[in-house]
């Protein structure tokens, strides 16, 4: 073993050094994982496109060119145009924004709900735990897509009616944009489907970490509960959570596409890859490029998130550091 000199600094001089070291270690392992690195590239690109998409697109995603309807891919329209003459390439780029927004927002909502419910269940135990477990079981026992359809069908009309009332009362143009209803419903459905996974994961992590000897040892040192949580429980629960979030981001995007495909997702005019796939499917024999573009994008992103998730799993698992 090599030795290193101790350099005394503030706060034991260790706290900072250790934290960067730990994450540096994990990062080095991630960087050594070829699939994970390959997976990161499309994901970074996706976020880039989502942010700067509108400046990159050659055409407005809404611009209809009736002279060039269902045009085949050409130098003018790289991926052709759809039946309304809209540029498919521009719509795919703009669709990245939908995908990222859906992934981030729905994951954030379900993560927050899952964190709260899972922590409560794990810490308090007893009846709260039973209630949370029962709730997650109930939610997970329902087919995801069916749940989304039911939510959409039952809530859309009353929500739109409420928006209309609000518009009449306030004369605020915001309430005229019905796409917000769609977004709220899609985010809501996705969060509802995904929170039980996070809740169960966090509950399991907390239960397992609480029973570890290092928590018992910390109690034996006389450590207050708050510090045990922040110093011991949470850092050790982070790894699996990061992995789950990575997988969850990809999963949410796929689910949203499935919603759109079934007609309960984000409605036009906001382009969504799922919606484009379902539209393209109707004409895939005559105009296969309408289907191919969004489908390939979807596949790349899904696989990328899966690879990144696997890589993170290996990188953040301290048991694998020994070898």
């Amino acid at each position, binding site marked *: 073993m090599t030795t290193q000199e101790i350099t005394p600094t503030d706060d034991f001089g*260790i*706290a900072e050094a250790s934290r960067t*070291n*730990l994450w540096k270690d994990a990062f080095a392992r991630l960087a050594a994982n070829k699939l994970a690195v390959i997976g990161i590239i499309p994901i970074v690109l996706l976020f880039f496109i989502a942010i700067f998409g509108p400046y990159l697109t050659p055409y407005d995603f809404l611009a209809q060119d009736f002279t060039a309807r269902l045009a085949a891919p050409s130098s003018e329209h790289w991926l052709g145009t759809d039946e309304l003459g809209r540029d498919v390439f521009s719509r795919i780029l703009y669709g990245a924004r939908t995908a990222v927004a859906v992934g981030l927002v729905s994951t954030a909502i379900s993560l927050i709900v899952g964190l709260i419910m899972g922590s409560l269940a794990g810490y308090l135990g007893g009846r709260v735990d039973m209630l949370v477990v029962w709730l997650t079981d109930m939610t997970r026992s329902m087919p995801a897509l069916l749940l989304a359809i039911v939510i959409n069908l039952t809530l859309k009309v009353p929500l739109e009616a409420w928006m209309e009332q609000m518009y009449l009362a306030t004369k605020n143009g915001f309430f005229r944009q019905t796409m917000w209803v769609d977004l709220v419903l899609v985010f809501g459905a996705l969060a509802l489907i995904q929170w039980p996974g996070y809740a169960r994961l966090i509950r399991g992590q907390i239960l397992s970490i609480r029973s570890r000897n290092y928590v018992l040892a910390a109690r034996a040192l*006389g450590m*207050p509960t708050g510090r045990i949580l922040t*110093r011991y429980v949470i850092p*050790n629960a982070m790894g699996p959570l990061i992995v789950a979030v990575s997988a969850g981001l990809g999963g949410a995007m796929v689910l949203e596409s499935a919603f759109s495909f079934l007609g309960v997702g984000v409605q036009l005019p906001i382009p969504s890859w799922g919606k484009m796939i379902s539209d393209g499917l109707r004409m895939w024999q005559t105009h296969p490029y309408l289907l191919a573009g969004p489908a390939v994008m979807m596949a790349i992103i899904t696989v990328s998130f899966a690879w990144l998730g696997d890589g993170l799993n290996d990188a953040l698992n301290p048991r694998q*550091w020994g070898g």
Partner: protein
Amino acid sequence: MSQTDSSNRAPLVRVENLTKHFSVRIGAYGETKATVHALDEVSFDVRRGETLGLVGESGCGKSTAGLTLLQLHRPTSGKVYFEEKEVTGLSEKEMRPLRRRMQIIFQDPYSTLSPRMTIGNAIGEPLWLHELASGREAQERISRLLNDVGLNPAFAFRYPHEFSGGQRQRVCIARALACEPEFIVCDEPISALDVSIQAQIINLLQDLQEEYDLTYLFIAHDLAVVRHISDRVAVMYLGRVVEMAPKERLFDNPLHPYTNALLLSVPVPNPRQERQREHIVIQGNVPSAISPPSGCRFHPRCPLAFEPCDHVVPEWREAEPGHWVACHAV
């Protein structure tokens, strides 16, 4: 070790009728509530500067005794005194100053250190917590503690996964020492280690005891190890202490039939002696702590069992000066 004068010393820790029952659910669907009698009416004392060995088979409650004594489990009944001050019933906040003085080392050094904390930080935690040192002073303390347990102080920046089991156990010992404790519960500290490493840790614990005048409650299942390290030994069976005596007396002249059976079960590391000695093997298994036998808990396996054993709990009495036993046949 000062075996002779430890008998005159005052008890540092005294345990009186300590009882711990766990309620569990049994049956295929957890439909039946049951009580595990992990610890029943256990009394013993640990004198300042001595090592009391607590020995017994798995499930006899010896680890529960250690954890309950430290109030890491709330006792069902009974009392624990530290320097004749009652600690049972104290709140966690009131316990905190006492926690500094009473420490514990666990069996499994792999799960006793957080994988996300350098060992320097792990050892530094008690310094920060009990405001014993900070800044540069803490740094030096950590180095000295690592040095004390035979590790390179430069290891402070490393993570537990970089260490072997024996080295991790040294880190755990250093962390316990950081509190400057007077009393340490050693809960099977060497059971998970290889033989050659076990000897290293035993020697280390003995050196540290001498250097810092520590008092140990040494919990183990290995009788030879207990004999080596202890001044006095208490033997547990199924939640009760059945015999307690200075170690020479206990090993040379055991009074309780269970102690005797245990001693006869230990293989002798000498082939010629092993061939000659009588192999009286105690039959049967340790019964479940959920429904322990009535009367003396050892009676179903006891070669000496007679009339009162199956319904009268034998009294815990001092059969000879300093030699306590709970048996009708003695």
